[in-house]
């Protein structure tokens, strides 16, 4: 009897000890925790300011932010993963999530998300989906990036357009009218041929999955992509877009100022650049608009950065606490003020400052219609192949058909390993 009581007491003590240990592995009362965080470029420069407040709220957590240049970020992350020296948490371009997921370098976040009551509905859907691999969330959107039209309102008005058209057909008509109004030396829209943005986004708009068979084959010869591809090539062929790349245009802001270019498709960072680089006289003459689509407002791509917890972090709970803090709507707005990066949380957009500006509002509208790029580690390289083949077709080095056939062939070769892995998985599943 006494013995049993003793045993019970011992079990209690053990259990208490266990909870204490699991508790102090994190923000428990025992000693302060130091978190290491990696952030890139401009975000890395200013996130310290936000982190400072986080530390004040959580005196037991100390955060060490290391700033990493974007140009070296990818290599550094991979090398750190192989060398086992990844930090506790970090910023990750959302196109890299699938890659680091394949490497098993990320901590699944579903449980912590559920506890915090955060989920897909709090965010823009397309952007949220870039963080989900096979049903599990591995990242939380931090800020978002998408592409919209930047255009000269005054030039459009003189050609008879008060607002930007919303369908492909009307938009093309508008481009033709601009061309007629301003003449051969003017280009209604600048779509650089050495960038994957236009072929990919128009493909998405036409409903192309870009990759088929669970991301193991190219789908560029499919009817959807073919439709958008022909449509895009027509813009170049009819002189509505100049068949040149970035390198061949000295200064696109100057061309916008001169009016040789009336519109271009680009991202949120240009809001600041346009305000800075266009002369005062034109500051009321430019605006932004969501992208037109095949039949009504079109989709754009879902970009941006996420916050992730790296596998092997000894303080995943504290890391999550910081992510939770950075995801608060008011912190997101603050971050927007510091960087110009657009908040990923829908709630932040209720802030009047964000929606007061019509140019920013166009991004808000577009963000409701975004599609993620294919979630395969090879995507970045595939995207390069897409513009290379588009460039060939634009310059007449290949017919549209042969360019698309080459593209699918190249992409299929890049994805060979994925097909083999899938086949192996399938064989294992049926074998067991």
């Amino acid at each position, binding site marked *: 009897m006494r013995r049993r009581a003793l045993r019970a007491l011992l079990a209690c003590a053990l259990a208490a000890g266990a909870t204490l240990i699991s508790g102090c592995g994190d923000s428990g009362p025992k000693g302060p925790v130091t978190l290491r965080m990696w952030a890139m470029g401009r975000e890395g420069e200013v996130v310290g300011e936000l982190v400072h407040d986080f530390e004040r709220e959580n005196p037991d957590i100390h955060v060490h932010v290391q700033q990493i240049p974007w140009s070296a970020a990818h*290599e550094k992350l991979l090398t750190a993963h192989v060398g086992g020296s990844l930090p506790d948490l970090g910023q990750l371009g959302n196109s890299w999530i699938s890659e680091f997921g394949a490497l098993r370098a990320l901590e699944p976040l579903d449980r912590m998300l559920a506890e915090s009551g955060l989920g897909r509905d709090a965010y823009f859907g397309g952007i949220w989906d870039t963080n989900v691999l096979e049903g599990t969330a591995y990242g939380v959107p931090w800020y978002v990036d998408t592409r919209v039209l930047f255009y000269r309102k005054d030039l459009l008005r003189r050609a008879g357009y008060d607002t930007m058209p919303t369908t492909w057909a009307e938009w093309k008509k508008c481009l033709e009218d601009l061309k007629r109004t301003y003449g051969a030396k003017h280009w209604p829209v600048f779509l650089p041929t*050495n960038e994957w943005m236009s072929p990919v986004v128009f493909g998405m708009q036409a409903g192309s999955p870009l990759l088929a068979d669970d991301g193991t084959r190219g789908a560029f010869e499919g009817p959807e992509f073919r439709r958008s591809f022909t449509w895009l090539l027509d813009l170049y062929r009819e002189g509505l877009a100049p068949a040149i790349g970035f*390198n061949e245009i000295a200064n696109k802001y100057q061309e916008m100022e001169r009016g040789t270019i009336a519109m271009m498709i680009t991202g949120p960072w240009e809001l600041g650049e346009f305000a800075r680089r266009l002369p005062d006289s034109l500051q009321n003459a430019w605006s932004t608009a969501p992208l037109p689509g095949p039949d009504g407002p079109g989709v754009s791509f879902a970009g941006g950065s996420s916050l992730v917890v790296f596998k092997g972090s000894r303080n995943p709970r504290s890391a999550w606490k910081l992510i939770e803090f950075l995801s608060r709507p008011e912190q997101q707005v603050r971050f927007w003020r510091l960087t110009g990066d657009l908040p990923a949380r829908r709630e932040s957009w209720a802030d009047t400052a964000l929606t007061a500006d019509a140019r920013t509002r166009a991004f808000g509208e577009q963000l409701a219609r975004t599609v993620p790029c294919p979630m395969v580690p090879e995507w970045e390289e595939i995207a390069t192949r897409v513009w290379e083949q588009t460039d060939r077709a634009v310059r007449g080095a290949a017919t549209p058909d042969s360019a698309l056939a080459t593209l699918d062939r190249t992409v299929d070769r890049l994805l060979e390993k994925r097909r083999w892995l899938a086949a*192996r998985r399938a064989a294992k599943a049926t074998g067991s």
Partner: protein
Amino acid sequence: MSAPLAGRQARAGLVLALPSVVLVLVFFFGPVLYGLWLSLTDFDLYAIADPTSVRFVGLGNYSNALGSADFWNALKVTLWYALVGAPVSVIVSLAAALLVDAGATRAKPFFRAVYFAPVVTTLVAVAIVWRYLYQPQYGLVNALLVKFGIPRIDWLGNPHWALPAILVLAVWKNFGYNMLIFIAGLQNVPKELHEAAQLDGANAWQRFWHVTLPALAPVSLFVSVTTAINYFQLFAEPYVMTQGGPLRSTTSLVLLMYEQGFRWWRLGYAAALAFLLFALILAATVVQLRLQAKRKPA
């Protein structure tokens, strides 16, 4: 009597050599053999997460490389670096060595130090300065061009000019090292030969061509072989200046290898590229040695 001594000596020699032999085996041949094995597999991103997904692909990586436009482009760029950059670098080094050697004795150490300075300066710092020089709008190079009525050139942004721009930087950065070797070689040219030639009525050019240059032959051989090898492996200059762009016009083989290996993490393929580059450098060196050997008896 002598046999055991020789044996003892041989043993002692072996023991003394052992540490370095082991080091070379472990840290040189080991990785090389591992690299060779790697080049026959498809070691990639997926293999890091799951080692069982590595497959033996035989010469697949090699045939892929030979069938890819990127490889041939990088090869072309590398040949530019090696066949234009290396000779220019050697000629500039020789010219600088002659100038420094012929200069007033007191100025010699000064110029030696000045010309050698770029070699020991960190490339990243150098790159920042040169990017300013090449800046299309406000750069010093274009400012000079404009002064002479030549239109501005976007040195690092234009696919036709980026390669020459990188070459100029590379030559400027590296010629000091070879210059030192040439200066050492010049000091070993016997004075009597020059005096004799002068007595025979040879002018300065003839003395250079018939006395200095032949006397420098062994030095030149060494310099041209090592320089060519270095230019075949040019990496840091395009990496920090242009990241291989624009339009891959400055992507050397080593840069391509780095991209494949450490950007896309396709280590098997990158290893195959390394062995292809090795074969290329080996062939080029053999050709160089043959050419020099042929010239000698003449």
